């Protein structure tokens, strides 16, 4: 999520801004120097220029040799006079591993053409088909500028971009937050617009056409694109000296190419539920009928997010809940609780639990049925992320201050997904197989933060 760091809820910024206001009022001289300005600066500068460096190294690893990600992230924030701030972010991800192709398990070995179309791979009998071609480097940048607008307003604008081998994202965002009620209430509104282009390896396949033999690219077309508009309205409210709450409503509209160009569905016999077989070409190819997925070219999501921060005698409870619903008929609930528990004056531990559940998209299908009496659906995807599943994250973070008063932390978390295919979709032999690709991942993140 590129815009998150720069724009992590305009309402978040106001409390911090108040704290920084006294500091920033003294930074004019440094600001002018940095900007190359010759304007006379206020002379009451008593504090040093303020830079905030936040860097982390992340390992994300799924079991069974699925996706592995090593990610380096940095956010640098420069505070200028009058509460103006520049925030720059950089993320570099190195991704490897295998990902479910969308085809179902079979009792016999299967073969598939790789997305590139220039070679094939085999999957042993009984195993979940995983495409192990996945290898990518992702570089993402963000830039954000924040400044007061009037006495009680705060305006933020930002830019984001990221590049992978097959994906380019560019986006802009802006938000405005306004304090009311003796600064106890903050109302905010913001938007983000993204324009992304997708250049699938080997070309984007025409939806619901067959995976073809190695060397046959007749169903591949050129690059694709999509636009995403996000709008967020929020309000945060100070309830008491110890309690702060927030509520956001978000609207998101995606238009364009929303398929995953690498995902297929198995075409199965209407009685046995087994994949229909074919003979691969001389240079290799699919051993069965696998059709590329097809999703609608638009999606509208609505979500409500609420969060509370409660200070209890040194400990801080951070609880949030999100409800999301969309016109693909996915509904989800997310509950997230963190509890920060100080140990002495300079360290803390923070247990974290997150529960997530979603219903499947209306066009989620485990497989497609070969039946001359029933036409293929217009839309179909077996992407497990569009299925019915629950996920739990459990983790622990330990943070401490270094001798130089810098912040360090390490967190270790486990993420597990477990899904079910709707019983009505299981045909013949499918009922006795493990159809849903459950996911288990380890997340380890080390962070370092210092200010100058």
């Amino acid at each position: 999520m590129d815009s998150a760091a720069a724009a992590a809820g305009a309402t978040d910024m106001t409390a911090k801004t108040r704290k920084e206001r006294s500091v920033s009022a003294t930074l004019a001289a440094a600001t002018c120097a940095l900007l190359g300005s010759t304007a006379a600066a206020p002379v009451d500068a008593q504090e040093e220029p303020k830079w905030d460096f936040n860097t982390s190294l992340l390992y994300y690893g799924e079991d069974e040799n699925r996706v592995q990600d090593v990610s380096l992230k940095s956010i640098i924030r420069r505070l200028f006079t009058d509460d103006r701030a520049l925030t720059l972010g950089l993320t570099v991800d190195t991704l490897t591993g295998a990902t479910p192709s969308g085809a179902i398990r079979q009792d016999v070995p299967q073969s598939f053409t790789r997305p590139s179309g220039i070679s094939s791979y085999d999957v042993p009998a009984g195993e979940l088909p995983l495409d192990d071609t996945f290898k990518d480097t992702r570089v993402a940048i963000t830039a954000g500028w924040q400044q007061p607008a009037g006495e009680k307003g705060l305006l933020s604008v930002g830019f984001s971009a990221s590049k992978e081998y097959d994906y380019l994202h560019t986006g802009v965002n802006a938000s405005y937050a306004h304090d009311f009620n003796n600064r106890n209430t903050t109302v905010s509104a913001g938007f983000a617009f993204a324009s992304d282009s997708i250049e699938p390896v080997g070309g984007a396949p025409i939806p619901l056409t067959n995976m073809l033999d190695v060397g046959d690219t007749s169903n591949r077309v050129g690059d694709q694109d999509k636009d995403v508009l996000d709008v967020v309205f929020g309000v945060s409210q100070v309830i008491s000296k110890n309690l702060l709450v927030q509520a956001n409503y978000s609207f998101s509209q995606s238009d364009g190419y929303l398929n995953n160009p690498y995902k297929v569905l198995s075409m199965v016999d209407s009685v046995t539920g087994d994949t229909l077989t074919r003979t691969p070409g001389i240079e290799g190819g699919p051993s069965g009928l696998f059709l590329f997925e097809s999703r609608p070219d638009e999606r509208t999501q609505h979500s409500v997010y609420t969060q509370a921060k409660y200070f209890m005698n040194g400990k801080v409870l951070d609880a949030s809940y999100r409800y999301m619903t969309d016109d693909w008929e996915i509904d989800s609930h997310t509950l997230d609780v963190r509890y920060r528990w100080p140990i002495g004056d300079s360290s803390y531990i923070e247990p974290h639990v997150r529960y997530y559940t979603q219903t499947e998209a209306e066009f989620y299908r485990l497989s497609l049925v070969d039946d001359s009496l029933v036409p293929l659906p217009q839309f179909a995807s077996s992407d497990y992320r569009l299925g019915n599943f629950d996920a739990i994250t459990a983790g622990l973070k330990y943070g401490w201050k270094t001798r130089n008063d810098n912040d360090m932390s390490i967190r270790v978390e486990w993420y597990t997904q477990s899904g079910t295919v709707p019983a009505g979709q299981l045909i013949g032999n499918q009922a006795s197989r493990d159809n849903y690709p459950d996911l288990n991942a380890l997340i380890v993140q080390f962070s370092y933060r210092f200010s100058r």
Partner: protein
Amino acid sequence: MGVQPWEREILAREDMQLTTDPLEAATDDHIYFSKEASSGGRGFGGGGCGCN
């Protein structure tokens, strides 16, 4: 409801900010955007990856 300006000592603490750790929040948003069908809520929705 609400407090006076001189009662903000606790609310001004770093650990009482709505987003205590922006890097961690951005990391989580990206992971869950990649693995689930929902995104955003806290701030803007996810994006910017062809996550497989």
